[in-house]
């Protein structure tokens, strides 16, 4: 096994990777920008190297500095986490060139799956179902004509795209040309690549993905599926495994398709194949993510495995750590993404200091985070600061466990979506498994708390008063200076 690892990331995923590496006795090396110098991932690592950058994000995207840090600390391998440089083929190439093992797939596979058009063609040739589509060539009018033949609604996407940028739904022929041109200019602006494609848009789709592991020689195992349909603007909010209301036959077909695709690509290490599932049971390849996913813990919980350990095992030995027959799905897990944002203010990112952090602890609750009490949440990074993952023997138990855990999760001083997540889990449609990617929009009215009544406002103020030392000094018989913890007296 490796003696040392550099984690080219920050926040909860850096902490997550460090945890397993330490369990395996591997020396851990963190990188950080100045604003993160007191961050948990820096404290958790054995060593750390500061990265300079005009902006904090630029530091974590600086290939040259990260390679230099890895060389200077003699890191034997490098884990890219997710986001930042994790799916950057040039980065993976640079890492390998320096004789450092990149914890991820081969450079050419990153390139293949990173291009939405090429990866779709690859999937089609591998016999994986893809939605009827047309790719834009130089001739825009020909593209529009062929797109119209597929029928409406159509989804227009940027070839180099991701994260919902350059995407739009076209419902009628009349607006096709205009939308295509907007998508092209957006694609040019965000990805410096104006190529777009149009595919049949599946109404009320579900997003199902499959976790796979490959040895780079065509041998692939899967660790079953995850349901990721609870999304806001193409960003996942809640994920679970197994997918609810999915027949065993259909699940097996989807998992087999994922394994076939990864096998054809001779995929190395951990990856995820994403599919769109139509209400009629047909499913289509969406894309493949060549890295560890944010939502990997739900798979770890139901399959009782450690995917970071599996990644390190594969990178070290080029063999799979498990046989397919050894991977069993049992129970149910739900992940809630904790974001610093203001649900009542159109989910505007929130900043501030984490004054109080209290996390529920139990064997069936996992809190993966990169925050600690006293830390400042700045606008420099993504608003997702952690994930609460809860297990139950079935879906109902996992939901009620997650609701209770969200109630007990306390982050004070900066606004978060904790209460909003609780409302999603309480929603009737969620409990009854009426789920598709439009869920949050459809249930919008029920998901935000209603304004407080006069009586409720009065209760909140009463309790706020009791939190004040001055008020208690008046109200309680024990003078505050003499009172020690646990002994305020109020008969």
């Amino acid at each position, binding site marked *: 096994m490796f003696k040392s690892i550099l984690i080219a990331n920050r926040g909860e995923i850096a902490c997550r990777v460090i945890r397993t590496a330490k369990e395996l006795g591997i020396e851990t090396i963190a990188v950080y920008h100045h604003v993160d110098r007191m961050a948990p991932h820096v404290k958790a690592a054995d060593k750390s190297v500061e990265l300079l950058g005009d902006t904090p994000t630029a530091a974590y995207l600086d290939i040259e500095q990260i390679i230099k840090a890895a060389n200077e600390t003699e890191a034997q391998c490098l884990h890219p986490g997710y986001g930042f440089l994790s799916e950057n083929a040039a980065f993976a190439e640079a890492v390998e060139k320096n004789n450092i093992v990149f914890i991820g797939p081969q450079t050419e596979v990153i390139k293949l799956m990173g291009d939405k058009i090429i990866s779709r063609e690859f999937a089609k040739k591998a016999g994986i179902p893809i939605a009827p589509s047309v790719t834009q060539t130089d001739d825009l009018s020909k593209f529009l004509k062929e797109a119209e033949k597929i029928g409406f609604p159509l989804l227009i996407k940027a070839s180099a795209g991701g994260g919902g940028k350059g995407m739009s739904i076209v419902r009628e022929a009349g607006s096709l040309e205009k939308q295509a041109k907007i998508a092209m200019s957006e694609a040019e602006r965000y990805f410096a690549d104006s190529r777009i494609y149009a595919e049949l848009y599946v109404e009320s789709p579900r997003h199902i993905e499959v976790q796979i592991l490959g040895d780079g020689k065509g041998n692939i195992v899967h660790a079953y599926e995850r349901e990721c349909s609870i999304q806001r603007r193409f960003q996942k909010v809640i994920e679970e495994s197994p997918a609810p209301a999915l027949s065993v036959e259909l699940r097996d077909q989807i998992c087999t398709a994922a394994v076939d695709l990864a096998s054809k690509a001779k995929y190395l290490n951990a990856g995820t194949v994403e599919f769109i599932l139509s209400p009629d049971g047909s499913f289509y390849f969406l894309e493949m993510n060549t890295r560890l996913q944010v939502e990997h813990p739900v798979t770890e919980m139901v399959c009782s495995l450690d995917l970071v350990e599996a990644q390190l095992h594969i990178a070290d030995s080029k063999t799979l750590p498990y046989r397919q027959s050894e991977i069993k799905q049992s129970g149910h897990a739900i992940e809630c993404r904790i974001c610093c944002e203001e649900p009542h203010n159109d989910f505007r990112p929130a900043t*501030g*200091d984490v*004054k*109080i952090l*209290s996390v529920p602890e139990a064997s069936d609750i996992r809190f993966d985070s990169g925050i600690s009490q006293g830390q400042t949440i700045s606008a420099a990074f993504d608003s997702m600061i952690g994930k609460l993952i809860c297990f139950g023997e079935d879906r109902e138990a996992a939901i009620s466990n997650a609701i209770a855990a*969200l*109630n007990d999760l*306390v982050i*004070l*001083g900066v*606004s*978060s979506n*904790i*209460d909003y997540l*609780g409302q999603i889990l309480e929603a009737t449609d969620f409990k009854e498994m009426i789920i598709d990617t439009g869920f949050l929009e459809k249930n919008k009215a029920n998901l935000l*708390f209603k*304004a*407080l009544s*006069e*009586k409720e*406002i*009065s*209760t*909140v*103020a*009463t*309790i*706020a*008063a*009791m*939190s*004040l*030392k*001055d*008020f*208690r*000094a*008046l*109200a*309680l*018989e024990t*003078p*505050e*200076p*003499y*009172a020690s*913890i*646990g*002994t*305020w007296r*109020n*008969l």
Partner: protein
Amino acid sequence: MAQPFNFSLDEKSIEVSLIKCSPVLEILSNGFTFKVSSVAQVSSHCFTLIVDGKKKTVWWARDDDAIYIRFDGRTHTLSYQDAISVSQQAGVSDNVIKADMPGIVVKTNCNAGDSVKLGDVLIVIESMKMQISIVAPRDGVIKEVNITANTSFEKNAELISLEEEE
């Protein structure tokens, strides 16, 4: 009745005042009366209490005039004008806490010989119809308490003195 504490929540101003301390606390808030009992501290920023028969576990934090409160699975942000910040401007030399206006002592919380920490409420006074908490200006030991509850004092009266710092 004591001077109310003023909060605002969702752009609404709310007055909270103490009506009675026994047999149970009665608190008037925004025109509603609440019975509060069994107040107990769990940790530095968490306490439990019973409000009108319902037990609540409350988490709280302060950030200047913002108060964050979490109970019943919901977080609220209120603003509050702190009396301590007013009293800090009162005539406080290093060792002697003086009154900078006449008033009445509502409550004393300390005796000679007590060790106190910066910010501890030593006495509560009422001046100009305002209830003000006088807090310890530094960590130290109380040398003398020159006043008792329900007595009045004049401007510049020496209320409390602290032992010289070593």
